[in-house]
């Protein structure tokens, strides 16, 4: 079926129906041209990263072609944990509320050793944020809501059944060869963004590598649908060496539709083909849930993983985002979440360059910013993996020592690492930051994502992040100086005038005094702040944040 004719209800149906949506092939006029059509932006891959990028660009007025070699949404739940920052980005893209409505919100994690709870952690211990630390949501639902949104935007042209077979990188773009059910055609892309996953055919076609460490361990994912409401709360439960699965780890997580994700560590010697068989999975699940538990096996997968990244994410006019650029272990939910942050970092930069408001050097800064973030994600993901699956005798010795001490001693609970869950990287070293000249306390340094806070606007509740502009925002505590209103493309948001910080949480989180000013990027990162800035200082920070000559 032509994707634009798919009824809206199909995207709001249950899991089986959503996974069954078949996006038909539609012939593009590009295929009848004598010479390749020219497109400003081509995105390869209609997963969470490619779709988020396309929607962001289209909302900014750009035209985007999205090529996908498949014609279905994600098969299986796959990436189930979507972090607060991802939800905030999706709020800007118009799909956050839908994700939260369907998803299971959670903030609390518990860690067990054998059958004893070692400790619990709250990922969002304070009030006054619109979004929870995490929602769990099957990847196919997230993709369905993103596709539905993309289909509403006339600037996006998603072409299913379009497989890129060759990429020729040029100084001013890339020439793509594409296979379809009706034969091959070519197109020119001024900018090409590869969001085509961990195996990235684009990366391979360009002869580029993603390097790092493989982990010699196997894990089994079993998604089980329980007949009754389970006795488990909506929390992340992680066991080291549980009685029902000795000497290995197990993770239990709730998804919508009363489906529970159970992740069993199997060890390197496990036979993936054997372990995938339901007759071998069901006893493992029963050992956890009880012999008389009523459940259906919804989806299962045996996987290994690696922590990898490309040396550089920008290669001329070809940019890599998401798993194609960096791969992490699943402990920490840092895969899809970091990919969506890649997309948001790139979208406004491409838009500014294509509008002629900045030079291609601005897109160039996507590389170091997101490579830095990838390193932080890889570091956290690798450390968690080394703790969960120690790979030497001495590593195991210290791991067990920490677990042993954690029963009695608070300090050792901090060492226990069952995954440090995704939070956005603070881009400390970014060339787009203007270093502080005034003294500030707290976390909101240049490079940090702006923290949310509850506000009111004309008596109605709202949130700080929702009040930011689509481009830069000058956040002023108190009345803005007259010159601020003349800054081109900058939204001036006066706290205390345009919006009211009735709980003073914005002021507290930003360590603000009267006249304090924050300059916030289109991707909601702080890039400069002052106690009392001059017009020259703000203009200079704006130029720096867009990689323009100062």
């Amino acid at each position, binding site marked *: 079926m032509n994707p634009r004719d798919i009824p809206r209800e199909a995207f709001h149906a249950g899991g089986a129906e959503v996974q069954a949506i078949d996006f038909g092939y539609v012939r593009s006029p590009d295929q009848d041209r004598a010479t390749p059509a020219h497109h400003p932006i081509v995105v390869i891959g209609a997963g969470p990263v490619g779709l988020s990028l396309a929607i962001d660009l289209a909302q900014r007025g750009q035209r985007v072609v999205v090529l996908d070699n498949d014609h279905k949404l994600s098969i299986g739940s796959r990436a189930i944990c979507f972090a607060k920052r991802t939800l905030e980005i999706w709020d800007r893209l118009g799909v956050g509320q839908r994700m939260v409505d369907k998803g299971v919100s959670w903030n609390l994690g518990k860690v067990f050793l054998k059958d004893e709870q070692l400790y619990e952690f709250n990922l969002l211990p304070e009030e006054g944020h619109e979004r929870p630390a995490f929602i769990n949501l099957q990847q196919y639902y997230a993709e369905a809501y993103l596709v539905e949104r993309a289909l509403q935007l006339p600037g996006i042209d998603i072409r299913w059944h379009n497989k890129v077979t060759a990429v020729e990188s040029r100084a001013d773009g890339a020439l793509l060869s594409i296979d379809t059910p009706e034969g091959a055609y070519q197109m020119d892309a001024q900018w090409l963004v590869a969001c085509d996953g961990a195996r990235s055919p684009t990366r391979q076609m360009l002869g580029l590598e993603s390097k790092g460490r493989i982990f010699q361990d196997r894990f089994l994912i079993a998604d089980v649908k329980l007949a009754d409401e389970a006795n488990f709360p909506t929390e992340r439960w992680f066991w080291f060496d549980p009685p029902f699965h000795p000497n290995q780890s197990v993770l239990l997580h709730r998804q919508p539709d009363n489906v529970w994700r159970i992740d069993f560590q199997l060890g390197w010697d496990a036979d993936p083909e054997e372990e995938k068989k339901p007759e071998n999975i069901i006893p493992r699940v029963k050992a956890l849930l009880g012999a008389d538990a009523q459940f259906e096996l919804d989806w299962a997968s045996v996987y290994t993983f690696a922590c990898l990244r490309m040396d550089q994410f920008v290669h001329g006019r070809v940019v890599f985002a998401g798993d194609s650029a960096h791969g992490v272990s699943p402990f920490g939910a840092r895969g899809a979440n970091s990919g969506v942050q890649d997309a948001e970092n790139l979208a406004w930069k491409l838009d500014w360059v294509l509008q002629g408001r900045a030079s291609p050097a601005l897109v160039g800064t996507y590389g170091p910013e997101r490579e830095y973030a990838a390193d932080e994600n890889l570091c956290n993901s690798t450390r968690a993996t080394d703790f969960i699956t120690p790979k030497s005798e001495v590593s195991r010795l210290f791991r067990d*020592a920490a677990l042993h001490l954690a029963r009695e001693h608070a300090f050792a609970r901090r*060492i226990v690492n069952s995954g440090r869950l995704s939070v956005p990287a603070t881009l400390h070293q970014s060339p787009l930051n203007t270093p502080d000249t005034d003294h500030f306390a707290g976390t909101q340094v240049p490079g940090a994502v702006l923290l949310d806070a509850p506000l009111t606007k004309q008596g109605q509740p709202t949130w700080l992040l929702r009040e930011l502009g689509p481009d830069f925002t000058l956040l002023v505590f108190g009345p803005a100086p007259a010159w601020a209103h003349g800054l081109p493309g900058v939204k001036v948001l006066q706290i205390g005038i345009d919006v009211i910080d009735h709980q003073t949480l914005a002021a507290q989180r930003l360590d603000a005094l009267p006249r304090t000013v924050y300059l916030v990027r289109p991707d909601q990162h702080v890039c400069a702040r002052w106690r009392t800035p001059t017009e020259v200082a703000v203009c200079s920070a704006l130029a720096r944040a867009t990689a323009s000559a100062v």
Partner: protein
Amino acid sequence: MLNTQPNLQACDDFYEALIAAHQGLSTPESHAMNARLVLLLANHIGDQATLQHALQLARGSAVPTADRRSTPAITPVVPTHAVAA
């Protein structure tokens, strides 16, 4: 900086107590106890630079840093998600 000047209140008493604490343990049990002891003492010291210095002195040479990027290129292994039969 780690203090390597004599600092133990009762040097011989401590040494005797250390050996005595291991009495009756098998070698693996002793290794496990030593690992717990390292973590307990490290937490008491707390300061990262001091601990780094101790690691270096204990090893007797430069301590390798956890460089996750230095490994040679390898064939990427990615999650293989296959639906159960």
